[in-house]
């Protein structure tokens, strides 16, 4: 049990968080919680992917002739993908920075990650507009429905990640993180990497595997 707990603030010093820094070693409660949450999100996407592959197997041709060239691997999603991958690298740079108490480096890196995340979203929205004008809508048969459902929920997760990065950035600028206490940063970065991995899977499936 920690003995430096005069002020009973949440997270850091509550009796339950006494376990969080884990005298016995191992990951802390919030990080384990995030890993489990990500497991559930993986299963959510698994359901959507299963529907995608089932639809793809049942409908010929796939892509349908009218959409044969609509999803282009080197279209706007290509720079978006590059940005998202780089943002995972910068995110990890930020985590490593705060682990060695380099607060300035941490804030820089997370700031860049946040910007890259927002740009990904903007490109995605722009791309949706282009696709809509080419006739690929949610109601455009299984091809359209699965495309927008998969990428849309991914986008929603990116948006959630952007919020988390924003909160982490704010708290970091307010000096709330140190090398000893930065669970929220670790958890956010794990989530951000997950979002990136899902995108790699989506990009490969929707744009390459087709």
């Amino acid at each position: 049990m920690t003995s430096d707990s005069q002020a009973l603030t949440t997270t850091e010093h509550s009796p339950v968080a006494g376990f969080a820094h884990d005298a016995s070693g191992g990951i802390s409660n919030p990080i384990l919680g995030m890993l489990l949450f990500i497991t559930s999100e993986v299963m959510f996407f698994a359901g959507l992917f299963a529907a995608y592959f089932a639809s793809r197997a049942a409908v010929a041709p796939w892509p349908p002739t009218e959409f044969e060239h609509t999803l282009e691997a080197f279209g706007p999603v290509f720079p978006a993908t590059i940005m998202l991958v780089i943002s995972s690298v910068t995110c990890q740079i930020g985590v490593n920075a705060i682990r060695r108490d380099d607060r300035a480096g941490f804030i820089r890196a997370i700031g860049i990650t946040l910007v890259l995340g927002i740009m990904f979203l903007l490109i995605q929205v722009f791309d949706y507009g282009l696709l809509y004008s080419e006739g690929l809508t949610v109601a455009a048969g299984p091809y359209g429905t699965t495309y927008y459902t998969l990428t849309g929920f991914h986008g929603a997760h990116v948006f959630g990640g952007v919020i988390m990065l924003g909160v982490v950035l704010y708290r970091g600028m307010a000096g709330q993180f140190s090398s000893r206490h930065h669970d929220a940063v670790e958890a956010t970065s794990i989530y951000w990497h997950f979002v990136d991995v899902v995108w790699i899977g989506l990009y490969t499936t929707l744009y390459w595997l087709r």
Partner: protein
Amino acid sequence: MATTAPALTPAASGYRSGLYEWLTTTDHKKIGILYVVNSFIFFFLGGLLALGVRTELAQPGLQFLADENLYNELFTMHGTVMIFLFIIPMLVGFGNYVVPLQVGAPDMAFPRINALSFWMLPLAGTLLFLGFATGGAAAAGWTSYSPLAQDRPLGSVGPGQDLWIVGLILVGTSSILGSINFLVTIFKMRAPGMTLFRMPILVWTVLVTSVLVLMATPVLTSALVMLFIDRNYGGSFFDPANGGNAVLWQNVFWFYSHPAVYIMVLPAMGMISEILPVFSRKPLFGYKAFVFATAGIGALGFSVWAHHMFTTGSVYLPFFSLMTFLIAVPTGVKMFNWIFTLFRGKLTFSTPLLFALGFLSMFLIGGINGAFSAAVPVDFALHDTYWVVAHLHYVLFGGSVFGVFAGVYFWFPKMTGRMLGEGLGKVQFVLMFIGFNLTFFPMHALGLSGMPRRIADYASDAGWNELNLAATVGGFLIAASILPFLWNVFVSLRSGKPAGDDPWEGNTLEWATSSPPPPYNFDHLPEIRSERPVFDLRHGRAGSGH
């Protein structure tokens, strides 16, 4: 910690706090009680819906339902409410109350998320029932097969089905958050000395259940989301009229809903596994085998979903038949372990034990009649008939509900500091046991002779009249059995016998603190050297048999 913490209220009045406390609490014990009370409210509502169904079916001819669609709404909401708003949260409630105590922790890992998980439920329930007020509640069965669940003429027109979808997404989110809470609590917050294989069995069953919830519920969420998109945005997932695949809904839906049945029964099995040893005065027989059997059921549970779809003509039958048969093996292991816990024990027939024994007998029947459906050709005859209604109620009511009542009688003293009356408890048990069997046993015969499910009325010359009437009488008997229960709770809360810390001579850590426990649970913990730390303390090491 105690020297610098503010003064704490005495344990005896710890639970009699004001409304504000109950609305804002993050204490797992209060949240557990909130879950239990909320779940009972939905149990009664779901029961009323069932009485509506049974009243109409008591005799051939449409007696009461001018709007035929209302019948479809009744059984749809009955199933939905019982599964998602009663049994799953009820077991979560017991887990919430008991698990942190049993592992010697001061609370769950994420107390505020715990509170959020609970409060999503009354909201979800409200949304579901709002359907009745907005043109008709969901009426496509709790299984909501597409295309009947689609927004099309003679399908599911109107907001009722959408409210159902959103309500269930809320319930699912609540469940998933709860499962994360349980897993982190169990893995990370056990008291010193409590290795995994010294955890109480209830904690093990909650662990496995939480894994199932974590992995399976999101798949239901994805199915619900996809159906919502179909209904409201012209989507083409499950609607053949749009190029979609109707059987795909069934696959995604049952991928969750089969593990769901284990979610609905494993914690009840855990509760039974705590109660049988206490009232036999010996340990659970085969603790480790039991743990492996539970894990086995959890794992196998993911491989059988298409046994709900044998008659679609679209599944690989032998695989799912084999896995379904195999899941009987770990279930049988548990049954024998329970029986041999009783064997050569010294049994005291308090109400918790009566309900536990009821569980054993009724779950045995439910498991056996399920095996018939595992034989695929037999399922061709039995699927979608009243045989299945019999099966599901034997395992879920005869099993889980009896387990819930066993748990209520067992842990009520811990939660409230007072004993429930034994006389009224026995009256409830007898009425409920007789009523339950009278309702559901005849359904085996009804299904075998060809009565399909989900029909508001049946031909008067089909030979089903007497059995349906018997089933309705049984249903009302079950309803009647709730009355002594409610009276028991009401009277005992006011003037039940004071329970003391350990009225049952229990085995596990919750009996090592006051009834009800103080907000932080334990003043001090006994040494933990086995799965029965309080038993060890009471009898010294010589009593543990190690």
